[in-house]
């Protein structure tokens, strides 16, 4: 089958275009590029920067939590008297840092990196496409995200500061407090960017697969991006609608979410009333639950790729994993009110959501088990990406298991809005997803740049991060069980009713509140251990060991393109002959048989 004109006979393997190609200006080639690889790299760099920034906000917060009321050292006086007079953080500023930490990490950091970055760069290469189906739309998606990000950051500088009602922006508080308007405008940009991107991803995967690449031969990473894109496509619009409604409540005086009879600081609010705060919660969580699967699915995809490659074995249970991920995506739309067990819903609906929540844990377990079973009998290569991918497995396991008491209403009564919740979701996202994303960076860096990242720095980055991140989040389960509430300026001390929960260790009483000091140091340590990564990332672009097309001896299509691929990606039309993980095929000459290698070679 001849796809006329698909592959430029003169597609180059070098990153510099030669004179007989149309010479694009610097701006067209690097800034407003329509090439998925350039756009992907922009997403990766922007996403990583936002992750660092969001983490920095938390490192500042951790000082207040560990030593409530103490002046922040070194940088305390930089925030100004309206945020931190004499360097002591005000509660309003604490709330701003908290709300923006969540918002930035989820919407500006992880999703753009996992979907916009890895999805954009890797997916077209893995399916043998020359680019995305709609390259100009792709470019627009990035720049709309960028504008959304700038809006969010700029919100810190307005009078009254940034958003301070959590990343969840619950009314009535969010409607009457400062900083929310820019947050809402920023969200509208970010949601639009995601929607445009999801359309692009789905069309690309359906329409631009190479010859021979049927759906059941797709790398699991592509399946993950495919399901993720459907989640983004169908779940984000309700939040966009809700954002518009909340914006109108703030600027047009409407009462979509404002009930009648509200009294603020002793004065009755002059609004028409008749609104319902629960409406916001439903619309918000209708997106925000699928959103957490948007956070984890691409990570599972990356781990699957790295695991298959470094075990030199096919993935165990590929079919089960594919059906599970589809089922997971579907179920994610009907569990959302497990975030709302405390809103007074009756037991019928509560039972419904508890049931669907329990059911949704099944496909997660299937995928995790399949990944674990893939290690059985494997020849494991402990490369840096593999370390991160391996760590993902128990970390995601802990995160997932600790979600179970939260998904059951009776236990959720005690744990809701405590540090237990924070521990749960951070385990899935931080040593879960973010570790998988690091694995992805180390794994695909040679494809993007033609050079390997430094292994020694990678190992320091891994071990330091792994230890510190567990010291940060494991104590939070204890704190939550002790009753310490989240989003509290004093770090949750005032509700820590069950301080003796840990009893004592060797006669020394362990105070859950005092654990905040330990967590603080671990968090700052975690920050320090990112420095080797940052240095490694930039230094290796020019200084890393130069490699060819397939430094990892991998089997998927992206490794048949030059490193880095030129415009149009492949030098000859990619054709797929087999399943994606044909490692250690009995009787084969090498321990891997790539998808793109013709039969009988």
């Amino acid at each position: 089958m001849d796809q006329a004109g698909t592959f430029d006979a003169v597609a180059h393997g070098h990153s510099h275009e030669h004179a007989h190609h149309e010479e694009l200006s610097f701006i067209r080639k690097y800034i407003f590029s329509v090439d998925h690889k350039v756009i992907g790299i922009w997403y990766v760099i922007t996403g990583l920067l936002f992750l660092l920034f969001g983490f920095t906000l938390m490192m500042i917060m951790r000082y207040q939590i560990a030593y409530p009321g103490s002046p922040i050292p070194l940088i305390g006086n930089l925030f100004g008297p309206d945020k931190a007079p004499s360097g002591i953080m005000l509660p309003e500023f604490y709330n701003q840092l908290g709300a923006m930490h969540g918002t930035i990490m989820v919407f500006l950091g992880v999703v753009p990196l996992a979907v916009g970055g890895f999805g954009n760069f890797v997916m077209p290469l893995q399916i043998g496409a020359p680019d995305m189906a709609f390259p100009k739309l792709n470019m627009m998606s990035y720049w709309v995200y960028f504008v959304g990000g700038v809006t969010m950051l700029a919100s810190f500088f307005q009078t009254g500061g940034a958003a301070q009602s959590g990343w969840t922006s619950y009314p009535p508080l969010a409607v009457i407090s400062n900083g929310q308007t820019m947050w809402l405008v920023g969200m509208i940009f970010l949601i639009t960017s995601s929607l445009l991107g999801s359309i692009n991803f789905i069309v690309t995967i359906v329409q631009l697969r190479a010859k021979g690449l049927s759906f059941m031969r797709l790398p699991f990473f592509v399946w993950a991006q495919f399901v993720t894109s459907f989640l983004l496509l169908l779940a984000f619009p309700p939040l966009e609608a809700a954002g518009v409604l909340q914006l109108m409540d703030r600027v047009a005086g409407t009462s979509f979410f404002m009930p009648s009879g509200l009294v603020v600081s002793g004065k009755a609010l002059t609004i028409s009333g008749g609104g319902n705060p629960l409406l916001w919660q439903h619309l918000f969580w209708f997106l925000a639950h699928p959103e957490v699967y948007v956070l984890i699915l691409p990570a599972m995809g990356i781990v699957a790729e790295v695991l298959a490659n470094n075990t030199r074995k096919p993935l165990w249970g590929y079919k089960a994993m594919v059906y599970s991920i589809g089922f997971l995506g579907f179920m994610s739309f009907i569990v959302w009110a497990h975030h709302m067990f405390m809103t007074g819903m009756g037991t019928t609906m509560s039972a419904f959501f508890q049931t669907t929540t329990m059911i949704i844990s099944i496909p997660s377990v299937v995928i995790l088990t399949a990944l674990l079973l893939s290690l059985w009998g494997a020849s494991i290569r402990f490369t840096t990406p593999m370390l991160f991918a391996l760590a993902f497995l128990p970390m995601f396991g802990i995160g997932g298991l600790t979600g179970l008491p939260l998904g059951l209403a009776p236990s959720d009564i005690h744990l809701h809005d405590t540090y237990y919740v924070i521990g749960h979701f951070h385990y899935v996202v931080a040593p879960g997803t973010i570790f998988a994303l690091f694995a992805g960076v180390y794994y695909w860096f040679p494809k993007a740049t033609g050079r390997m990242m430094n292994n020694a720095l990678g190992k320091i980055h891994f071990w330091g991060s792994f230890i510190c991140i567990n010291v940060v989040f494991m104590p939070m389960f204890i704190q939550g069980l002790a009753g310490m509430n989240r989003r509290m300026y004093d770090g949750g001390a005032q509700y820590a009713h069950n301080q003796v929960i840990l009893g004592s260790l060797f006669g020394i009483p362990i105070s859950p509140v005092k654990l905040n000091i330990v967590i603080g140091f671990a968090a700052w340590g975690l920050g320090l251990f990112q420095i080797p990564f940052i240095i490694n990332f930039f230094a290796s672009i020019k200084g890393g060991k130069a490699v060819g097309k397939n430094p990892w001896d991998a089997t998927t299509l992206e490794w048949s393109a030059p490193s880095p691929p030129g415009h149009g990606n492949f030098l000859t039309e990619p054709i797929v002959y087999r399943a994606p993980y044909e490692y250690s095929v009995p009787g084969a000459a090498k321990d891997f048989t790539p998808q793109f290698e013709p039969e009988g070679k």
Partner: protein
Amino acid sequence: MNIPYTVEERPDTGLANGKLGIWLFLASEVMLFGALFSSYVLLRVGAAEWPHRELSVPLGTINTIILISSSVTMVMAWASLKMGNWAKHRLYLIGTFILAGIFLVNKYFEYAEHFSKGETPAHSTFFALYFTLTGLHGLHILCGMVVMLYFIGPGAKLWKSNPEQFTNRIEYTGLYWHFVDLVWIFLFPVLYLL
């Protein structure tokens, strides 16, 4: 560099990229308006009393007729291209654009009437919903008009260089436009009649 299936259909899916793309976009729009309809349902059920017949039924009916007509002219604009009749296509496309404009003008007068009576979005949840639903819908009409203007103006050049691609693009514009009409078909009875 050529992206495959931009114009011709991929054999196993039977689709061109743009066709799948526009339908996926419409799917997301269904969820967007769906959320607003859901808000309407929740707020109305939760309200002790709900206003009845606050809006001008005659004006709403006229606008419904205008929008349905514009849907017909839009599909005819595409059909004319399939039958190779450029002149008819221009007539129908411009006709759709004008009908859309009249719809918006009517809405302007409607809004102005309500504002003069103090019936602003802040007045009640009913009016908040009315203005938000019809406002968002109106914004969609405006965007549709911008796209039509592009294909009446500079975009028309594509007919000369790639008539198939141009025809497809008009088809996709039509799909979007019919969806906008479809939303109004539900908005009209819900807001004006019930």
